[in-house]
């Protein structure tokens, strides 16, 4: 697809530098969701993406709605009480711990992000319920050792954990071994744990469209994107049992009746249980 300088140059695994002259994924997403925590560079990239594919903003909203549904499902139906939410993003309505703790107040959530603006907002704005707990880790997804070591302060890895990586893995090129990263994280959690993933799809709309969206993104952003096909996404779930309805566009995963926001997203998602 697009050339990937990050991949060739070797990725750093430290925090993302704070830079408002370049777009950040979290702030692009914030803008697409109608938030105000974004800068001119973020809006320029987001608008270029929308110009290439008008349902880009719908995709962001649909992904956010998927977050709500999957956390509700995992808490209410799968009985999950521990979440490892990687790629937290700037807090918006219905954050993971809010959704989960509304159902089970004792739920513990560890948020992980490598964008300092996300951590600053998360630490300041996310209030845990009294019964539960939240923690924030500043770490790059590629640094799984740090994530697992620090998450263990709050999460009990002998009990099931839901690992969620929503709208995240498209920021990890193949050269950084995203499959190995996911496998490492899932190896650290016991049977009965869950994996939820959503990411940008290379094959839900025309390839040229996705290439132009990637170009808009890559030209103004600190991060680079790699879209993935259905087959490539399925590989993340190797050895896990997919939950119905399997691997689908984000708006089609257990949609709730009465949803009025309609469009055609460019994001795949799936949820699976570790046997």
């Amino acid at each position: 697809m697009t050339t990937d300088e990050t991949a060739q140059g070797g990725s750093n695994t430290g925090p993302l530098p704070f830079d408002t002259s370049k777009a950040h994924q979290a702030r692009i997403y914030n803008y697409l969701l109608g938030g105000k925590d974004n800068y001119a560079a973020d809006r320029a990239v987001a608008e270029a993406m929308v110009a290439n594919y008008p349902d880009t903003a719908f995709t962001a909203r649909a992904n956010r709605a998927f977050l709500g549904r999957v956390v509700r499902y995992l808490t209410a139906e799968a009985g999950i009480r521990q979440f490892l939410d990687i790629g937290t993003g700037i807090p918006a309505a219905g954050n993971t711990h809010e959704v989960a703790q509304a159902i089970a107040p004792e739920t513990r959530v560890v948020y992980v992000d490598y964008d300092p603006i996300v951590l600053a907002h998360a630490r300041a704005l996310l209030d845990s319920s009294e019964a539960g707990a939240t923690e924030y880790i500043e770490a790059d997804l590629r640094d799984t050792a740090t994530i697992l070591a620090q998450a263990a302060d709050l999460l009990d890895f002998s009990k099931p954990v839901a690992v969620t990586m929503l709208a995240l893995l498209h920021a990890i090129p193949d050269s950084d071994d995203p499959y190995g990263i996911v496998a490492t994280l899932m190896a650290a959690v016991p049977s009965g744990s869950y994996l939820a993933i959503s990411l940008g799809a290379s094959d839900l709309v025309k390839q040229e469209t996705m290439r132009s969206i990637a170009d808009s993104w890559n030209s103004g952003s600190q991060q680079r994107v790699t879209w993935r096909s259905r087959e490539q996404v399925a590989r993340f779930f190797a050895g896990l049992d997919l939950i119905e309805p399997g691997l689908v566009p984000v708006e089609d995963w257990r949609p709730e009746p009465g949803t009025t926001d309609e469009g055609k997203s460019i994001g795949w998602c799936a949820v699976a249980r570790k046997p």
Partner: protein
Amino acid sequence: MNTGSTSGEASGAGQEEPAAEATVLRMLLGAQLRRLREAAGISAEKAGYEIRASRSKISRMETGRVGLKLRDIEDLLTLYGVAGERERTKVLALARRSREPEWWTQYNDILPDWFETYLSLEPAAATIRSFETQFVPGLFQTGDYARAVTRLGHKAAPDAEIERRVGLRLGRQDLLDGRQQPRIWVIMDEAVLRRPVGGVLVMRAQLRRLTEAAQLPGVRLQVVPFAQGGHAAASGSFSILRFEEQDLPDVVYIEQLTSAVYLDQRADVEHYLEVVDLLSGEALSPADTMRFLEQVADDT
């Protein structure tokens, strides 16, 4: 009340944005009414007809350029199917705030216009982020600290006037008891904690008050220690007020000696947003700030 005593104020005040107060609150109100009208699927013509006004009056009202009588707003809410007492009360309270005198009118004699604007914006905000370089933020000041700060600015003032100024300052703190209070997110330079305004005893009590404030729901305090963050030195104090309504811009408030500046152009606001975003990442986390506050209190 107090007629005739405000002449001293007129000289330097009100230059920046004469109608900013009414405008921002009316914009808030208008934006809410437009959202309710659209949600109900009612045209501006029909809404206008309901209150014997033109379509263009509705549209001017919804963009905050004109106000409406409370009775008309009540009729519109009914037309829009807003029946819940809570939502009606919320909109009507905003309407009242946008047109009627507030608690601080009792301080008219000492209250400059430029600060009155801030007082009207403060409770309407969803989030207030501020950066403080010198003083403990007014919302968290003890009476003694407030008195000491006020004396710095009004050395020759009689005690009675000082007390009135302190009363005004402390009156704002009622906001913290409100259920609909804005989220207050303050970043303070370490200097704020170290400068013993009013003396050591006053400061010690003030630091205790800050640790209590840090635990209030909806309040977040962060300190930028001297050891860290050169950016803290590059800016003076300011606040950014953010409103829930998506179409309302953030407003930056910068207090000067005899006036204040209000910025709401995105390009201007963004510089300040960048400073607080950067500093909130560099500053101690809210949890570490608690420990830091306790440590400074022990040193004081």
